């Protein structure tokens, strides 16, 4: 049901051992929230059609199993105890539900495809789950400007399919595209594979329709590229993870579909060649560069060991300390191929080569196979052992220091052996400064966790990096937010939260502690 790959699986539970994590009480300054009662259900029934209301309470009396898929996240790590799921079909219905919840101080968790990695889309207690799944219509698409306006519950893949005949693509692509919804993508400011090329959602989202916690509808669903008229309120909801309101529709700019794609994996003798290589590649490929992904040797070897994509030949990988996958996409195949082949010639014939060698895909099958070596790292890591995963943003130049430093740190604690930590590896999006730091252990052990946290967060903070580059804070990282945001920032975030949601009903326990 859930497509599991690229982005989605980048981060698996880092503390699975703490199974009851999710029931931690949300420590907020807000008054306690109330549970849904039968009279609320009766009220919801007047707003919604019968098929849009699921509740274990009477008179609906849905069986609890039917709510499992809404209460649990896909990893089975976070678990809520909600009695009620509402699936409104219109913005008006969303508004009326929120109005009731606001009056009665009932917590509300907006839920899209429920594919997040930090427990942001499931209740921490028994909040109402507001699923956007029934709001799944495209409102308009302008094939000239490429601006798409769609309900928040549209699945990313179906939007991709919708714009494809018009030769456009969505500016965002991620592993969970078959399940995730555009509203959730925007609410979590999802990153993904096209970020290097098309930028983040803060740039591509042109407008939003949001229902505020008290039921007020904020209509900012414009399709303007330029609109400098005061505060840009919609930006606040992008990445707010549903703590300020419910996004019900999105206006988004879709780029024209590239006509040709190529990829190549380059084997590098040492990590210090990655950045000079990135410079050369950026300069020569310029507008057709669409991915520049980094895989260290440990990550590559694990991917190959666990059958992710066809391995390069032994002579190609000999003496390589790390690998880089470069993808191009552009408007004209001959042009792109010429550029790429010129780049490869330059790299290959340089006096002081930055690369040992590499392979260039010759067909879409090989194109996928090369990608699989990069994307398959996640799956390989979970097959190899128990993974502690960190999705961090640090300056490009410190990627290796962070990985090596972590390894050294674990070694100094006597934890780097067969029965504790087996591998420390790094891979990620060089182009976005996003490193996936993975620690593969034989088993989840408290001493490993103690060695990793807050060590890694401190390292990230020392580089002024981000403790969550693209996965968000959710329920999982609220305690660590202060490593990336100072007191002033967190203070302002709390004020904003209080202003939009004075009763604290919106996605309680998420983002802010």
């Amino acid at each position, binding site marked *: 049901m859930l497509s599991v790959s690229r982005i989605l699986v980048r981060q698996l539970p880092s503390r699975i051992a703490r199974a009851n994590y999710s029931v931690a009480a949300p420590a907020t300054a807000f008054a306690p929230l109330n549970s849904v009662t039968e009279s609320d259900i009766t009220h919801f029934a007047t707003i919604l059609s019968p098929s849009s209301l699921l509740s274990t309470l009477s008179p609906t009396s849905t069986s609890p199993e039917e709510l499992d898929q809404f209460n649990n996240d896909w990893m089975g790590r976070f678990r809520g105890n909600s009695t009620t799921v509402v699936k409104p079909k219109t913005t008006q219905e969303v508004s009326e539900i929120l109005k009731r919840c606001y009056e009665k101080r009932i917590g509300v968790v907006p839920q899209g495809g429920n594919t997040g990695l930090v427990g942001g889309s499931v209740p921490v207690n028994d909040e109402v789950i507001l699923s956007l799944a029934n709001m799944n219509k495209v409102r308009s698409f302008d094939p000239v400007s490429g601006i798409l306006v769609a309900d928040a519950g549209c699945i990313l893949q179906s939007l991709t399919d919708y714009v494809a005949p018009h030769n456009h693509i969505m500016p965002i692509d991620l592993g969970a595209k078959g399940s995730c919804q555009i509203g959730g993508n925007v609410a979590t400011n999802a990153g993904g594979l096209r970020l290097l090329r098309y930028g983040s959602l803060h740039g591509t989202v042109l407008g939003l329709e949001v229902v505020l916690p008290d039921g007020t509808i904020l209509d900012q669903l414009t399709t303007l590229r330029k609109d400098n008229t005061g505060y840009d309120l919609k930006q606040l909801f992008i990445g707010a993870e549903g703590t300020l309101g419910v996004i019900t529709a999105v206006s988004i700019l879709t780029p024209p579909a590239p006509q040709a794609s190529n990829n190549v994996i380059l084997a590098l003798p040492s990590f210090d060649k990655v950045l000079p290589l990135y410079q050369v590649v950026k300069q020569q490929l310029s507008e057709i560069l669409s991915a520049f992904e980094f895989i260290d040797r440990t990550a590559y070897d694990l991917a190959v060991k666990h059958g992710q994509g066809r391995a390069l030949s032994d002579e190609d990988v000999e003496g390589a300390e790390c690998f880089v996958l470069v993808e191009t996409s552009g408007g004209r195949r001959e042009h792109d191929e010429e550029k790429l082949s010129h780049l490869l010639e330059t790299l*290959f014939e340089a006096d002081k080569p930055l690369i040992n060698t590499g392979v*260039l895909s010759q067909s*879409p*099958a090989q194109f996928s196979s090369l990608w699989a070596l990069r994307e398959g790292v996640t799956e390989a890591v979970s097959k190899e052992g128990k993974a502690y995963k960190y999705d961090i943003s640090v300056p490009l130049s410190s990627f290796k220091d962070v990985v090596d430093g972590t390894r050294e740190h674990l070694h100094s604690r006597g934890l780097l052996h067969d029965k504790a930590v087996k591998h420390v590896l790094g891979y990620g999006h060089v182009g976005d400064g996003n490193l996936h730091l993975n620690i593969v252990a034989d088993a989840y052990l408290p001493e490993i966790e103690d060695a990793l946290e807050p060590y890694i967060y401190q390292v990230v903070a020392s580089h002024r990096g981000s403790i969550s580059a693209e996965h968000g804070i959710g329920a999982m990282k609220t305690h660590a937010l202060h490593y990336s945001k100072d007191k002033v920032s967190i203070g302002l975030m709390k004020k904003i939260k209080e202003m939009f949601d004075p009763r604290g009903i919106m996605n309680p326990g998420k983002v802010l502690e």
Partner: protein
Amino acid sequence: MRPSAARLLNILVPVKRAVDYAVKIRVNPQQTGIDTNVKHSMNPFDEIAVEEAVRLRERLKDQIKSIKAVTIGPPKSIDTLRTALAMGADSAIHVEMPESAPAPEPLAVAKALRAIIEKQEGGVDLVILGKQAIDDDLGLTGQMLAGLLNWPQATFASKVDIDVAKKEATVVREIDGGGEEIRCHLPLIITTDLRLNEPRYASLPNIMKAKKKPIEKLSASDLGVDLSPILETLKVSEPPKRVGGGKVESVDELIAKLKDAGITAV
């Protein structure tokens, strides 16, 4: 010293540029064919054929004298030859056709290949080619070529062993329910099946080298063959679209819909 080893093998690998298998096929509006303005790559079975030739050389070393790739097609087919050369073929022949010319049919291709084989000064001992091309799926060229040359054929190969000294090949063929092992004399036609091998990536050094390898250009008239089709395509159409299901709100609505569809209780 083995006296018979004096005869070293020359391998010919015919390859075809075909619409890539990952591409969604669309019928053109005139219904005369498909939209060909899409990504093409080497026919996957031919890729296996090139890989097998290169592996034979890796196993038999100097006993393989030459591996030559050949393709018949429009100017862009040269990309397919470059891929073959980057994988390890030594040289190539491009029988060039005009961009607008219709794709040749297996019999014409087999005749052109026969003419090429007859032109090769050192002769050809082994032809390895895909069992079929994934665009027209005809699966006839190898067999027709064997017929025209009166050579033995080992089709649908999943394993190939060559004894150069004895001038013999042992080939396992994919047949219903298993494999059939046959022994053939050279010269021989082998058509490749999916399980024969997994083609390699073209490494950058080999791609660079491939740019310097010779490609001989020929035309149909050089070979004295006519590549125009003898079959007439009347119409190409897509399979009927699958109609999606719908959701009903109640049992009554379901019954009403079933009745509408002409389904009644027995």
